[in-house]
């Protein structure tokens, strides 16, 4: 029998005897490694960018002059206001469209729900520019819709569907709708059914219940999605450009920096625009996150929470649901269909549908200039390799240790999620130019992709880790296995599913990245997204750009199917990608 004296004696020496020696050392080493990477590839360039924004061009000293100039200049103020307005409009549109959509998907028991969910969420993995291209072809001045309407004699001159603020709102809203729907969906399904039942018993009608119980309980989830939606116009420089608009913060920043680098004033205004966008994104996100965390209701509920409440809608509700879901699905489906039509045709101009079919576009991208494809696969794969090593190590540190600075690590990785890609691109361009000259080597491309996309992977790996019962690992250690062996023999196999989904999502997101890459590429380093942009926007080679985009959409779709298969449903996968944080 264990006697009390033994326990006292062993603990009496005053040392920590319950941890194997070396435990702390390996933890510290790991933490140091991770922080070295974070320091060099995240903190240093961002700090450099911040410093640069304070540099006064004439004297080379530091000061607030650039910011003063920026906020005094009427043009930049207008740009700032435009971006805010766009954010609000997109937020309003996605909210109005998303609320009924999410409610139907969360609560209605109807056939074909999985298909509709998949279709609704598709834009989350499609690059924004793919959607923009498709809608320009479809709704543009001489696009399919206008030509058809004129052919049928309904209108005489083409209507302006998309060139302007309204088009921008429409295209961005459709791109962001999945984020909104996902957040609301999580909100609706996470409400403990008994909370609504209690209201029912207390005599509340269904309408009253929705407004007094369901909607308020949904608010934290809604806001988590809303902030992503609202901030998007501070990030997306390309969609406005494609629609002929430049008076938005990220767009003007891109133009100033990419085209007018020699004009010192415009360069600094560009840098300040980037920093201002970045600060707004990060600041708003953090404020809201704190608020949401304080308000988090789900933590209160105890006992077993089944899947959320579901209802069998009556006939009218069912009809409305199908019409509405069909409408959204059709809008989403325009993207791959139109890209496909353009990709397999040539000379599709002034006709509602193409008439000349060819595989010529694919011959060009596969055989004539395969370099772009090769680059995309190579850069994404290398970035993935970096990402997996860093992400797994970081997830382990976050989930399983009490190492110093792990909260800060979590914080930095969260920051990266909301930081505009343009900020990373510009900061890399400047920081790795002279002082640490990596930007002259192609490795800068995968490095940038790695930094930009690893937070997604890290979050998924972390989430899987949190679901893994620590006692499974402890049992391995008690049986005599070391930390490393336990990781490879126990943790990794059990985490594999989550990691696999994370790997696929990482690849998808890295493959279509353009915001950062567009600042860093040099001749010979072009990736597929850059090829799409150059062919479309500068070269007017619509067919080739469409073929590239179509190839990307197909690739993404196949990868997504695989991920959904492994991850147990499209929703689980999308939740990982869509920024749900538990």
């Amino acid at each position, binding site marked *: 029998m264990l006697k009390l004296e033994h326990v006292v004696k062993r603990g009496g020496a005053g040392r920590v005897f319950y941890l194997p020696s070396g435990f702390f050392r390996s933890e510290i080493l790991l933490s140091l490694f991770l922080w070295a990477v974070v320091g060099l590839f995240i903190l240093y360039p961002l700090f450099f960018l911040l410093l640069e924004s304070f540099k006064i061009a004439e004297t080379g000293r530091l000061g607030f002059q650039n910011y003063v100039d920026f906020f005094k200049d009427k043009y930049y103020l207008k740009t700032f206001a435009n971006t805010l307005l766009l954010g609000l409009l997109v937020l309003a549109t996605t909210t109005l469209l998303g609320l009924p959509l999410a409610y139907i998907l969360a609560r209605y028991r109807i056939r074909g729900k999985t298909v509709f969910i998949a279709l609704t969420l598709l834009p989350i993995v499609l690059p924004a520019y793919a959607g923009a291209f498709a809608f320009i072809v479809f709704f543009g001045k001489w696009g399919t819709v206008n030509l058809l309407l004129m052919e049928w004699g309904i209108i005489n001159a083409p209507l302006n569907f998309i060139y302007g603020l309204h088009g921008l709102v429409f295209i961005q809203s459709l791109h962001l709708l999945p984020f909104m729907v996902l957040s609301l969906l999580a909100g609706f399904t996470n409400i*403990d059914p008994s909370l609504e*039942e209690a209201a*029912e*018993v*207390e005599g509340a009608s269904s309408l009253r219940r929705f407004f007094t119980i369901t909607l308020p309980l949904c608010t934290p989830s809604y806001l988590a999605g809303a902030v992503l939606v609202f901030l998007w116009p501070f990030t997306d420089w390309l969609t406005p450009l494609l629609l002929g608009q430049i008076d938005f913060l990220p767009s003007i920043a891109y133009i100033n920096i990419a085209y007018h680098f020699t004009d010192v004033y415009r360069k600094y205004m560009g840098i300040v625009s980037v920093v201002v966008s970045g600060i707004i994104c990060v600041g708003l996100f953090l404020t809201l996150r704190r608020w949401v965390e304080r308000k988090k209701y789900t*933590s*209160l*509920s105890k*006992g077993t929470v089944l899947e959320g409440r579901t209802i069998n809608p009556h006939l009218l509700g069912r009809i409305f649901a199908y019409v509405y879901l069909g409408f959204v699905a059709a809008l989403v489906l325009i993207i791959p269909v139109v890209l496909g039509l353009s990709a397999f045709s040539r000379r599709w101009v002034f006709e509602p549908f193409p008439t000349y079919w060819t595989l010529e576009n694919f011959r060009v991208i596969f055989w004539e200039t395969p370099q772009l494809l090769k680059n995309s696969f190579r850069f994404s794969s290398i970035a993935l390799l970096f990402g997996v090593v860093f992400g797994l190590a970081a997830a382990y540190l976050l989930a399983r240790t009490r190492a110093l600075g792990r909260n800060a690590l979590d914080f930095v990785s969260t920051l990266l999620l909301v930081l505009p890609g343009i900020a990373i691109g510009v900061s890399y361009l400047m920081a790795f130019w002279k002082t640490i000259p990596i930007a002259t080597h192609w490795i800068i491309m995968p490095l940038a992709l790695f930094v930009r996309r690893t937070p997604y992977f890290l979050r998924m790996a972390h989430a899987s880790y949190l679901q893994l019962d620590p006692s499974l690992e402890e049992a391995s250690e008690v049986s005599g296995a070391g930390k490393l062996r336990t990781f490879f023999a126990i943790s990794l196999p059990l985490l594999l599913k989550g990691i696999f989904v994370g790997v696929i999502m990482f690849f998808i997101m890295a493959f279509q990245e353009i915001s950062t890459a567009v600042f860093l590429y040099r001749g010979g380093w072009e990736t597929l997204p850059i090829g799409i942009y150059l062919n479309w926007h500068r070269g007017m080679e619509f067919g080739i750009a469409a073929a590239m985009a179509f190839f990307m959409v197909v690739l993404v779709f196949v990868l997504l199917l695989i991920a959904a298969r492994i991850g147990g449903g499209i929703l689980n996968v999308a939740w990982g990608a869509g920024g749900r944080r538990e």
Partner: protein
Amino acid sequence: MGFIEIHDLFKKYGKVVAVDHVWLEIERGEILTLLGPSGCGKTTTLRCIAGLERPDGGDVVIDGVPMFSQGFVPPSKRGIGMVFQNYAVWPHMRVFDNVAYGLKIARIPKGEIRRRVEETLELVGLKGLEHRYPTQLSGGQQQRVALARALARSPKVLLLDEPLSNLDAKLREKMRFEIKELVKRMGITTVYVTHDQAEAMVISDRVAIMNLGKIVQVAPPNEIYHRPATKFVADFIGVTNFIVGTLVELDRTRNIARMETNFGTLICRVVAPEAVSVGNKATAFIRPEDIVILNAHGGEENVFKGTITHRVYLGNILYFFVELGGASLRVQSLPVAPYAEGDSVFLYLAPQKCMIVQE
């Protein structure tokens, strides 16, 4: 006629039958407990009374009004109060608003609402916490908010779905008495669902034992304990010894039987004479506290020799496990009983306490 009547209630989920043709009457002002293991259909029955589930057959009649057969009466129109297993206290509303919710819907004047909320909160011992949010309350306090909310409208019927299962043991014990006292004082007809037999014993006027979707026995707590209708009830309530043997003689006038067991002939009472017959296997049960340990054998009936295999000390009582012809019987005795493991003893199984029940 009962205040709540359940007529031939039937409910299935897919192929699983949750409630299997249940009949039950609950008197006005009575506290009735639905007791049974998890998955026995007790919660589904309760939810049918509330109207949160729609049965596939049968009806629930509350105060003479059918709830299903003549048009569905929604939960909001049934005038019931309900306490959920996880409290279901709305986290985005203050305590006051939680309790006032139903009163506001009933369009009761503001001053009256204030008065009644305060009254109810005082009743459940939450006075002064009106302006707290539920997250700032302990589990027990949240439980009381749920109770206050259910009581504030002075409902005709109070439904409680395992309301104490998320509380710690001490608090659970205390709340049992509080709930019983409160409900009795207000005279509300109450249906209480639990899987905890001690809770059911303390709180109920009558207990309805459920198993596999059916009601097995409805009776006051003492009758459930002392005269269980089936083996399931005997086993589910309290600690029981089962003795298996063959029935050799049955006196149907006095309901006394003689049973041949591994350790000798046992004389028992028969609770369900129609369910047993001579020559067949039968099961008798006896509670540990009804077995008496004797030092010596005077030749009486139902005394058998055995060996003590284990001695378990529980503070206020002492359990002996006695081996008896291959069977092991649990015997309860006072802590001062002077026996040790390995001792040979005689056990007296009083014939009137030894009962043959329906399988």
